[in-house]
């Protein structure tokens, strides 16, 4: 009964979560979460799912954080994702539509006025300045702030010769004999609402014509106040009643700007300045002009197997590929062999009862694993330095030689193997120590009674019993070293370089560093993802062969 209530409650909570996600706009995510939670509830409540209750958390973790990134990366290999094609199509379109250009045709002079605790911006067009007589009296009318005075009335007076220069006094009266002007002139002075001007957050402010606003601008604030609030004013976008917008261009002017591109119904964009049409191309990943010029920003498109084909056909990649591959296999194989043997030997030695201070030895021998790898690798880089490194100093004192560890191919490879051994043996030592505890002690007692020595003990008792659990770890260690980017990159960066290839590759490069170097040159994630997938397939095939040969997956019970 209780379990039924529990099931219903769990289902209820799950449904609520899924609904929230769905309403939030992400239908795909909601469906995925619904599937996952549904499976979880089934496994933990139904009797049939009993076995899977143990598996579920582990497999869920692996699916989410290994399989999902893997699939995503393989998918990237089929696109042209790179530094030039970084955005999605929608985002690239957004960016282009958001581009603006300043129209210099109309400029607005602006002045800052105090109003209570805040400020107001007053914008006037150039037309307000009396360049000829026709605009003069309107200036007079607006500046005096007479409400509602229609421009038509005063314009009549302007037609006469009473052209006032600048902000002359009101000249509404008189000159009734002038011909009426064509129609109401558009307002040419605007005022913003009260602005605090404290933050620099971008804001959009709608201005209204000064004439009808009820605000009478008094003394304008001196330039030093404008400078003091410059950052705040810079962040303001001023929107006019007719829809255009303007932004601060200089300390005295606002210039209107508008969108550079307008989207047409068929999806193309028209450049408002040059009237060029841009067509999006799903093959190149750019918007293109009619002449074929590519317009940034680019977007990601699927390119099918282009990246993969390139790896196999482009001579730049294919050339050093086999040589790098050969060294990678040798390096991984030797690393596993040496570290496993050393680790096992040390584990055997430390489990010997006659050895005193075994506990102290154990901790000290384990220390190389306790220091983060990249630190020790960099320290080793310094130690193997040809002229100043300690190792060469010691060798010089003892044997009189100073080997060129980084310049010579063979020596560089030996150096890499030495460092990798140092880094890797504690793992196997620890593993063998743990696995050895599973061997019942009476087997050793029996063999001691039979007069067997340590070697016999090892080869006839220890090794056959540890071999089964150890083999997958050996295979995994092989795969880890096959993909060991950090060691090679930090220690030698793959050098010494091959002298006869176009692509950057070196004697100590493994496939991953080789990938990184070539992809890094071109900043192409799609290409790098494709090469990574190919490497993965190679490693997987090698490992499957290994596992088959050792028949490890079949379990055996004693």
């Amino acid at each position, binding site marked *: 009964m209780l379990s039924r209530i529990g099931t219903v409650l769990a289902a209820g909570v799950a449904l609520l979560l899924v609904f929230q996600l769905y309403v939030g706009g992400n239908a795909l995510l909601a469906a995925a979460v619904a599937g996952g939670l549904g499976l979880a509830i089934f496994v933990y409540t139904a009797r049939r799912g009993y076995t899977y209750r*143990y598996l579920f958390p582990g497999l869920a973790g692996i699916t989410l954080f*290994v399989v999902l990134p893997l699939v995503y990366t393989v998918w990237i290999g089929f696109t042209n994702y790179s530094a030039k094609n970084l955005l999605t199509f929608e985002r690239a379109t957004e960016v282009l539509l958001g581009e603006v250009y300043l129209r210099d045709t109309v400029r607005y002079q602006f002045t800052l006025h105090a109003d209570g605790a805040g400020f107001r911006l007053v914008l006037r067009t150039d037309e307000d300045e009396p360049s000829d007589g026709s605009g003069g009296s309107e200036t007079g009318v607006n500046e005096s702030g007479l409400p509602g005075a229609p421009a038509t009335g005063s314009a009549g007076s302007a037609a006469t010769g009473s052209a006032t220069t600048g902000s002359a006094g009101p000249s509404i009266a008189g000159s009734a004999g002038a011909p009426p002007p064509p129609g109401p002139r558009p307002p040419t002075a605007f005022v913003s609402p009260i602005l605090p001007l404290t933050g620099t957050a971008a804001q959009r402010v709608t201005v209204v014509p000064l004439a009808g606003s009820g605000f009478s601008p008094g003394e304008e604030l001196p330039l030093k106040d404008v400078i003091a609030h410059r950052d705040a004013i810079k962040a303001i976008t001023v929107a006019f009643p007719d829809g255009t917008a303007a932004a601060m261009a200089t300390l005295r002017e606002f210039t209107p700007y508008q969108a550079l591109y307008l989207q047409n119904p068929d999806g193309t964009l028209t450049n408002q300045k040059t009237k060029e049409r841009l067509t999006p191309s799903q093959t190149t990943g750019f918007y293109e002009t009619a002449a074929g010029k590519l317009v940034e920003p680019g977007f990601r498109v699927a390119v099918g197997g282009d990246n993969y084909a390139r790896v196999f056909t482009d001579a730049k990649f294919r050339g050093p590929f086999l040589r790098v591959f050969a060294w990678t296999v040798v390096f991984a194989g030797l690393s596993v062999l040496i570290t496993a043997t050393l680790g096992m030997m040390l584990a055997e030695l430390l489990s010997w009862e006659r050895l005193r201070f075994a506990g102290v030895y154990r901790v000290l021998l384990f220390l190389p694993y306790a*220091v983060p790898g990249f630190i020790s690798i960099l320290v080793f880089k310094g130690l193997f330095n040809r002229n100043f490194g*300690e190792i060469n100093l010691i060798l010089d004192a003892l044997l009189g030689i100073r080997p060129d560890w980084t310049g010579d191919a063979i020596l560089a490879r030996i150096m890499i193997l030495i460092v990798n051994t140092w880094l890797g043996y504690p793992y196997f030592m620890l593993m063998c120590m743990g696995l050895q505890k599973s061997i019942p002690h009476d087997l050793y007692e029996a063999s001691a009674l039979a007069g067997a020595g340590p070697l016999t003990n090892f080869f006839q008792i220890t090794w056959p019993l540890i071999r089964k659990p150890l083999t997958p770890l050996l295979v995994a260690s092989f795969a880890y070293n096959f993909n060991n980017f950090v060691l090679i990159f930090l220690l030698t960066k793959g050098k010494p370089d091959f002298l006869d290839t176009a692509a950057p590759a070196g004697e100590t490069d493994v496939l991953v560093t080789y990938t990184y170097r070539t992809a890094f040159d071109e900043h192409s994630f799609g290409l790098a993802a494709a090469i990574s997938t190919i490497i*993965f397939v190679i490693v997987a095939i090698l490992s499957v062969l290994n*596992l088959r040969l050792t028949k490890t997956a079949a379990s055996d019970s004693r």
Partner: protein
Amino acid sequence: MPIVASRSHRWRVVAAHGFLLVFLLFTLFPLLMVISISLRPGNFASGSLLPEHISWEHWKLALGMSYTDVDGKLVTPPFPVLRWLWNSVKVATVAASLMLLLSTTAAYAFARLRFRFKALTLNAILLLQMFPPVLTLIAFYAIFNMLGDHVSWLGIDSLASVMLAYLGLISLHIWTIKGYFETIPSEIEEAARVDGASAFQAFRRVLLPMAVPILAVVFILAFISNIIEYPIASILLVSVDQMTLAVGSNQYLYQQHYLWGDFAAAAVLSGLPITVVFLLAQRWMVSGLTAGGLKG
């Protein structure tokens, strides 16, 4: 175990000690170099093992204290190294515990229970881990960015996201524990079932106590790999206060000017939690738990 020792026995013990000491000399030399670099004045990577002058400046910076240098200028610690240490310890402990939990239950299923596609799944999880991780980082960023939009404490720049990301690295641990489980005879659990234990009780009270050595080993390894892990943490942790030691120490290596001394001090600090955990876990790695479990 009382047996008659042969005459060459003493020499063998001496030889063993000798070999171990020489080996330790080679092994510990780089570590001693790191310590000596951290005690040197200035930021130099090379020099003699025993520094002529000992300067605590790097350690003072690492432990969060300011010091006055030779010119009389006050140098304040540029990075919160102790905070990084604490972040690392938090992430490593929680992630390692969760990883142990997930791997143990999964390993039990693979070792003792029967279900379809067992061999296939087992091989699959081993093989899937072989994808070079350097490039799945973009995917990790995308996943946690999206997760952060819905669950704010799991997004980018949170320690919880790093803990969660490490949960995928359990396939090797599953194989290890499974291998160990298979060396323990299942008859003991069957005896417990006959006595009335449920399957889960047999697992918890019979099998797990016998597998304690390998669980300790797996916890240590998981803890260590979490502390030293760099790529995933560097993608997910952005602000300086949230970084772990591995990501943070890299901040000391500016392109043109490697601050070796400070870096070395941070390196030694990062070795401390690992050594402590290793020492604590020693007492779990005792032998003989399965000895005598089965007659003959």
